[in-house]
């Protein structure tokens, strides 16, 4: 067993920032990550980081834009924290040497981005995430922080009191991918989940293959409520064949969207008559699909994004990376022809419920980055708002876990006081196939909390290791059955078909049925590769389990929310219904029988109350 004060799971932007912050507070911190840090998907972020740095801009404006972008589903304390801390954190990156693009006077450049009232997106070419990730990893090397890379964290070691709010997290169980060793990691002060996105729930996504939402699923099964899962951002400009992202920076710099008729449809058809291409992502994504649906798409699949008029010089200066991506992954020369684009899954607004210090309702368990939901993005994230989230909340979670006093959080976590329960008519029973039933199944499936609440942290971790070992053993021992790849791709297809940009009740129900069937089949899953060395078959089989739980959570949320808000659009209910829905959709695992409940949105900021307005661009 390994032991540290703070264990950070994941080494993307959020994880690295958390580790650095924890170490600065004097904690002995270690990162456990299934990928080497520089392989994390933060590296793929292209466009930039929002921060109110300049004269004429203010954090209040940034907060206002963010709240509007969220369609009034963000929590004001979280949003304000983000916008206040972001400038300082961005400059911190600059002080760490990040290679930002520069203005003539030598200051960092900023550009316009969708949904922002000021050009406040700080960037480094079209490879901002790459620069950010590497800059932070470099600082990690400088500080000599321990990294266990290529260790897959498969479960949390959490006590099993009745109410999740009474539970404590003592560490994690991880599987060394290289050697096949399963080991416990005890965290004396806290575990921080920073496992990133869950794009692999969908078939067409801008996310990496490693983005399987492990952290969210682990926390969910350990009892932590997950929040607003139905809000999935579909990015309007991904390449049709691979899902590779074409940054919003292209539109920020002046790129134009055309349909098959060569019309600038954002204006022509009134989707966003003020901001045109720079309207919020959900607006643009729906506009594109509408065009395709009305027969004005190209090859009935995509639309064109044209940046040729920007001129070669400007393009190579600010968007060079885009040229490479279009060339390598779609065979299109962006200087010569328009690029084909269509919406692709991009970002999960929801995630593990945390407060603005990154803490969950389970003691000693934190979450930061894309896997968390403090709720800054509400129902729709603005471009350039995720990277600041990583550094702001990553830092806070790290510092808080290491014992720094950040004041009492205004956001409450867990099912405290009176909360509204949700009711949902589902075609099949969601959750565990045999909930809380046979010991064997639970083991095969993984993820119920440790047996008893007694014992010290060491024992809790030890017990979790034993349980995981049994689970791995049983997967390895089966000689026949279903392979995870089939299950995974069926779920991905179903999600992309039914829980996409446009959602209909029947489709959502169909998706639930598909998922339930997939769960059945997962009971028979087996790992074919008998090797203990680098067994990716095993790892992916474990990940697929997470995909199942998350697909279900997303669909349940989508079915429950019968309104149109932000990224969530329902065929039957095409308007925002503030009287009823100014609340977060919460889901608790409840030992295998998911429970739906609601939590009001906090619109009250430090010195102002955000008034829900019609969101038009």
């Amino acid at each position, binding site marked *: 067993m390994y032991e540290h004060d703070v264990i950070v799971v994941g080494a993307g932007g959020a994880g690295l920032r958390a580790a650095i912050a924890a170490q600065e507070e004097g904690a002995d911190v270690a990162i456990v990550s299934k990928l080497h840090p520089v392989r994390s998907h933060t590296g793929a972020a292209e466009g930039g980081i929002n921060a109110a740095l300049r004269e004429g801009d203010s954090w209040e404006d940034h907060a206002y834009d963010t709240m509007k972008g969220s369609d009034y589903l963000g929590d004001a304390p979280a949003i304000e924290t983000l916008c206040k801390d972001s400038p300082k954190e961005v400059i911190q990156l600059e002080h760490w040497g990040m290679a930002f693009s520069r203005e003539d*006077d030598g200051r960092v450049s900023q550009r316009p981005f969708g949904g922002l009232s000021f050009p406040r997106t700080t960037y480094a070419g079209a490879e901002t995430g790459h620069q950010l990730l590497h800059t932070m990893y*470099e600082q990690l090397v400088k500080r000599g922080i321990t990294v266990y890379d290529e260790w897959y964290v498969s479960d949390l070691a959490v006590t099993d009191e009745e109410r999740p709010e009474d539970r404590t997290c003592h560490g994690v169980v991880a599987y060394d991918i290289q050697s096949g060793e399963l080991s416990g990691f005890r965290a004396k002060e806290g575990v921080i989940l920073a496992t990133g996105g869950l794009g692999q729930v969908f078939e067409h996504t801008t996310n990496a293959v490693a983005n399987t939402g492990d952290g969210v699923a682990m926390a969910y099964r350990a009892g932590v409520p997950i929040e607003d899962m139905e809000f999935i951002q579909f990015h309007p400009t991904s390449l049709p064949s691979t899902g590779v992202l074409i940054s919003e920076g292209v539109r920020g710099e002046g790129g134009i969207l055309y349909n098959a008729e060569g019309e600038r449809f954002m204006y022509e058809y009134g989707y966003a008559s003020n901001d045109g291409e720079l309207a919020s992502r959900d607006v643009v994504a729906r506009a594109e699909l509408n065009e395709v649906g009305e027969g004005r798409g190209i090859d009935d699949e995509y639309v064109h994004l044209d940046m040729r008029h920007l001129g070669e010089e400007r393009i190579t200066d600010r968007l060079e990376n885009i040229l490479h991506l279009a060339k390598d992954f779609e065979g299109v020369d962006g200087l010569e022809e328009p690029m084909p684009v269509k919406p692709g899954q991009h970002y999960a607004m929801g995630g593990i419920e945390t407060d603005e210090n990154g803490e969950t309702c389970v003691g000693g368990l934190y979450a930061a980055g894309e896997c968390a939901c403090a709720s800054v993005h509400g129902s729709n994230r603005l471009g350039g708002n995720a990277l600041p989230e990583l550094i702001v909340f990553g830092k806070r979670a790290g510092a808080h876990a290491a014992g720094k006093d950040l004041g009492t959080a205004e956001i409450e976590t867990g099912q405290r006081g009176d909360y509204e329960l949700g009711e949902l008519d589902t075609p099949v029973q969601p959750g565990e196939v045999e909930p809380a039933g046979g010991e064997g199944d639970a083991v095969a499936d993984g993820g119920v909390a440790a047996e008893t609440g007694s014992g010290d942290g060491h024992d809790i971790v030890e017990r979790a290791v034993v349980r995981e070992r049994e689970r791995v053993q049983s997967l390895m021992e089966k000689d026949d059955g279903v392979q995870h790849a089939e299950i995974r791709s069926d779920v991905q297809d179903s999600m992309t078909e039914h829980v996409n940009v446009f959602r209909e009740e029947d489709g959502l129900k169909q998706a639930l049925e598909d998922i339930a069937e997939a769960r059945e089949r997962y009971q028979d899953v087996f790992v074919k590769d008998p090797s203990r*060395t680098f067994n990716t078959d095993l790892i992916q089989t474990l990940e697929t389990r997470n995909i199942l739980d998350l697909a279900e959570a997303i669909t349940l949320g989508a079915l429950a929310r019968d309104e149109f808000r932000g990224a969530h659009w329902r065929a039957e209910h095409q308007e925002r219904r503030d009287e009823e829905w100014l609340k977060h959709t919460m889901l608790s695992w409840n030992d295998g029988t998911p429970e739906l409940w609601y939590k009001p949105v906090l619109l009250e900021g430090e010195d102002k109350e955000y008034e829900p307005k019609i969101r038009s661009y």
Partner: protein
Amino acid sequence: MSTQVPETETETEAETDVEHSEPLAPAQEERMRKKAEARADREERARREAAERADDDEDTYHLKVFRFDPEVEGKQEPRFDDFHVPYEKGMTVLDALIYARDTFDSSLTFRHSCRQAICGSDALFINGRQRLGCKTQLSDLDQPVRVEPLPHADVEKDLVVDMDHFYDQMEAVEPYFDADELPDGELEEQRQTRENREKVKMSTRCIWCGACMSSCNIAAGNNEYLGPAAINKAYRFAMDEREGEDRKQHRLNILEQENGVWRCQTQFSCTEVCPKDIPLTEHIQELKREAVKNNLKFW
């Protein structure tokens, strides 16, 4: 190619005297044996079918993939497996590998994640050259497409190599920004000219894929040589005007070590294989000149 090891089509015919690198529990051994058998059958079938399809259908690509596993019977001797993958427009080598894994043999092992040439996990030796699987179109390659792990590195399993040495070298050049002094205000940034950012821009693109290191004969022959990627990393900081003179001096001292820049024999293969088009040789040469100039000052 004439130099290939002979190919074995099935795994069962491999010899049975198993010499595991570490002792395995009997249960594990038994399990492995059983699995190997069950799998051999099924895979044989799948492959035969695919090969048949390959005959009457032109739209498949023929891949020869290097296989090795230190603890699995029949894979301890490296061999090449054949996969026939149905071709779709725009398919990359990585796509083909994923298809082969998900359809024919789930034990086929390789690193990958981003699918967009940014995470640097899938540098492979494809048709005799270091390339990123995700950035290599099948249509650009001659068949059969030969896929091997990076040369000059320990193979862990199939296409996965041990990257530790590469990481060590990267970290040996003190790869972190360390300004002599910072502006006073918390919100005050350091100034950097556009020209200077332009100068270091290419060097900041490195994704740590290790392709360059694998292609360099000098690095292959001498493990102490820092290698092109690490030198490039050092270049990125040494040329950044935001770091002070003292720091630059220190960086040059590191690079001037016997196994630093001087080992480079300007083979250019690093520059040629770098998927991020970083002019590595140029950077190394520039640092050699910097180092010489630096020393001339003290003569």
